[in-house]
Structure formats: C-alpha cells, structure tokens
C-alpha cells in the first residue's frame, strides 16, 4: 500500500500529497439531481479525502449563461481562495471577447474552460479564435471537454488546434472518455507537447492512466474529477491504486497542474 491507500483504508484524509483537482464545477445542473452541489458540499468532500484545491467553472457558466456563470465562479473563488481557482468559461455564442476582457486579468481565474459539445460548436471554429490568442499570450491553460466521435470535440480537433496554436497549453478534459478516445488522446499528446491529458471520465481506469504516464510522462497527465457533476472519489480512486511510482502519482494528483499554473503566475 502507498501512503494514500493507507489513509483510505484507515478512513482518514490523506496528508501525503497536495492533491489539486484540475476539473471541477459547482452548483446545480438541470439534467439530473445533484445532492449538495454548492461549494460548502464540495469542500466537505475535499476535506474528507484530503484534496487541497480545485479548479472549477460553475455549472451556470457552462450550461446556460457564461456571463452570469463566470460571475458566480468568481464569487465562489472570492469566498474560498485557498481552495478554489476559477476557469473562465467561454461560450462561442455568448460574446467570447467580452468574457475574456471582463475576466482575463482577474486573479480569481487561472485558465479557460470550453465545452464544445454542450455549446454545439466545434473546437476548431473561428468563434474560439480569441481564446487561443489569449492562451498563447498569457500561457494560461485551456481546459476543453473532449469525447471520442463527437463532431465538436473529438481528439483530431484537439490536434488541429494544438497544431495551429503551438504555444497554447490545452488540457484535454476526460482524455476522450472512451477506451478508443484514451488511445487517441495519448497519440495527440505525443504529437503536441502542450497537450496535457486530464483523466476524469466514466470509462477511465488506473491501468489506462498508468499507460498515459508511461507514454507521456507524469508531467503531461493531471487529475481531475468533474465534481460535483460526478463524485470526486471515482476518478481519485483510480489514481490511488494505479501502478505508478510515488513521485509520478504525486505529479498526476497535483504537481503537474501546480507547475503549469505557476508558469503563468495564476
């Protein structure tokens, strides 16, 4: 057992590693019921497991209204700056330039969140051009939803934007989700050094995550949970028990994303 699984079996929060969740949300979501979706409920789960920090975009921002949702994200971070950093959500149909101008320099935000599937707009589309300009200028990461086979955010589209914008750091959210998508995400990341794989997704496994690290290095793989969309512990458990060295596990759980944010001053 490693120190984290020892803490798990003792049913106490782990303290061995600074865990940073690189893919979180907050608030209710109309499609299904989420118990306790607000920041207090999220912090309770983080404290239960020993998760230090989470990077989030509000569900309001990704689902309905980027402007109101980004304001909600900023308020959540304002109330708990030690626990949360915001992703500035850009909806291509809701004035991307205005959102980037309003929040782009705000210290409560550390990166940009895109959800092409929800917004039914391809990652390669011209409405996202201001995002890539911002990302290349600031060095701040762009977390995009990905899903193998999607017309909007399949892995070849990630490769296309990474090729067009080589100075942009792109977090491939869910790493394509499916087993095929995970393979494709590794191949895209092998071709584009600033593509980082974020590992939450309903079909990922610890074995697949260990495979990502073997192919790319732990500096290219980051833990995310998608909570409270999905419970934080599902993705965390896969990494806890995966066949990784202690150093690689610590990098995936927090070191890699912390280093990425440190480079941007976020």
């Amino acid at each position: 057992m490693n120190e984290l699984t020892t803490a798990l079996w003792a049913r106490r929060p782990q303290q061995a590693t600074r865990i940073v969740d690189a893919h979180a949300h907050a608030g209710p979501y109309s499609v299904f019921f989420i118990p306790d979706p607000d920041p207090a409920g999220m912090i309770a789960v983080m404290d239960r497991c020993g998760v230090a920090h989470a990077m989030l975009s509000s569900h309001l921002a990704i689902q309905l209204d980027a402007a109101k949702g980004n304001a909600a994200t900023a308020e959540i971070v304002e109330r708990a700056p030690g626990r949360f950093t915001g992703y500035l959500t850009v909806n291509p149909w809701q004035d991307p330039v205005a959102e980037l101008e309003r929040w782009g320099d705000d210290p409560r935000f550390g990166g940009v969140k895109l959800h092409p599937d929800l917004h039914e707009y391809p990652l390669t589309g011209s409405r996202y051009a201001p995002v890539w300009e911002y990302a290349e200028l600031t060095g701040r990461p762009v977390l995009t939803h990905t899903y193998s086979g999607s017309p909007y955010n399949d892995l070849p589209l990630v490769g296309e934007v990474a090729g067009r914008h080589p100075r942009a750091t792109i977090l491939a959210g869910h790493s394509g989700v499916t087993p095929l998508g995970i393979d494709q995400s590794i191949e895209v990341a092998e071709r584009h050094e600033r593509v980082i794989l974020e590992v939450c997704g309903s079909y990922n496994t610890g074995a697949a995550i260990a495979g990502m690290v073997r192919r790319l290095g732990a500096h290219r793989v980051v833990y995310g949970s998608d909570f409270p969309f999905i419970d934080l512990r599902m993705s965390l458990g896969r990494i806890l028990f995966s066949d990784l060295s202690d150093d690689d596990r610590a990098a995936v759980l927090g070191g890699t994303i912390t280093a990425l944010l440190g480079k941007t001053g976020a």
Partner: protein
Amino acid sequence: MSEDRPVLIDADVMLGRHPRRDVGGGTVAELLAAMDRVGIAEAVVGSMTSWLHDPARGNRELTGLLAGQPRLSPCWVLLPDTCGETGAGFAGAAVEAGVVAVRAFPREHGWDLAGADAAPGLDAVESVRLPLLVDAGQTSWQEVEALARAHPCLRIVVGGVGYRKLRQIAGVLDRTGNVSIGLADLSSHRGLEWLVSRFGADRFVFGTGAPYRDPAEAVTRLLWSELGQAEVAAIGAGNLRRLLRKEVRAA
C-alpha cells in the same frame, strides 16, 4: 493493517475477456490479483461468456472455473425459457451447482424484465431465494419497479446506476422494499450519503463492475464516504451476506 478494517465483498464481478475494451485475459488468477490490489476479500462472479456469447455455455463453464475457489462464488445468467435455452429447471439447477445469485441482461439478450416471458423463471428464482442482479442500463426503472411489485420476495440489486438517475432511483426505492442499489458506478456527487440518509444503509450492496470498471472506484467511494463505520460494514459485506442467506424484507 487495522483489525477493524472494513471487509469488502464484491457482488458485481465478471470473468472473461471483453470485446470492446482491454480487460486482460479475464482469468481467475487475474481476478484474484485485482481483488488483492484493492483489498476485496470475496466476490460473486459472473461470466462474460454468459453475458456476451452463450449464456448456457457460460454458466456451465463458470461452475468449473470457480471450483475450489473459496473466495469466489458463481452467479449464473438467467434467460426466459421461451426457447428452452437454459432449461425449465434453471433455478433448481443453479442452487444445486452452488450458484449464489443470478444475473439478467434483458436489453442485450432481447427480453423484457417485467414481461410475461420471464415471469415463470423469475417466479422460480424467487422461490429458491436467489438474488437477481441487473445493471440499470439493461432495463428501465419502470420495469424494475414492476418486477419488484410482481415478485415481492425477489431480492433485486440494480448496479451501474451512474450519476444521472437519482430522481428515478429515489422514487423506486421509496415505493419498494425489495430493491437494492449496487455501488458499481454509483457516482452522483455525495449520492451515496444522500441515498443512505433517506433509505438506510441496508438498501446498498458493495460491487465494483470489474473488470469493465476499475474496482478502485467503488472501494475509494465507500471507504472515503461520509458514512459511519457500521454503515460501511453493512454496505461493504453485511448486506450482501444477508441477501445470500436468503433473508428478504417484503415490500
């Protein structure tokens, strides 16, 4: 290792290869190694062959594969007997073979869980008090409820419920007494705690969905839950033991 470490018995495991993802060779040795890796003591085991190729053959083979494996108990796959595939004496044969639970794949095997075709077979399973395991994706919550009402002594465990169905799960749990929920992919944020607070820990059964799912998910979800030790002990092993001892709370 702590003496009061929770015991975990996995009600939701399969042997065999899977055609659409790399789960390894699916052997008994691999399953035992996977259980040891995450700390699972025992498992109720089904067969990929029964699920994805030939239920009768898979059931027969499973009995042999698990002979002499004290940590592993067999779970056969049920079909309606309309075509004589598994035989009219399925339930009795299962008991004779040491089977501890049966599993159904109605959506992929082309039958209705609450329909007339399967009713005699389910009557027989109910009469010998074998629990029925079914994944949520193989049926509908309306069918689960109809089945539970039609067979009030049949113990039904629904696994693989995901994170999008609490509105339906809560309704069915509220209106039935013989439906339990498996932990494999029970993945709503704080959903386990919310459900236990409403319905009690005795309605939940530990399971992982391995090897299709990573068993580390359910282990971590339960052990780092916000539930007390007694609730974790019940969900981890006690409730399944109670089901396998053929006790049932009538609706």
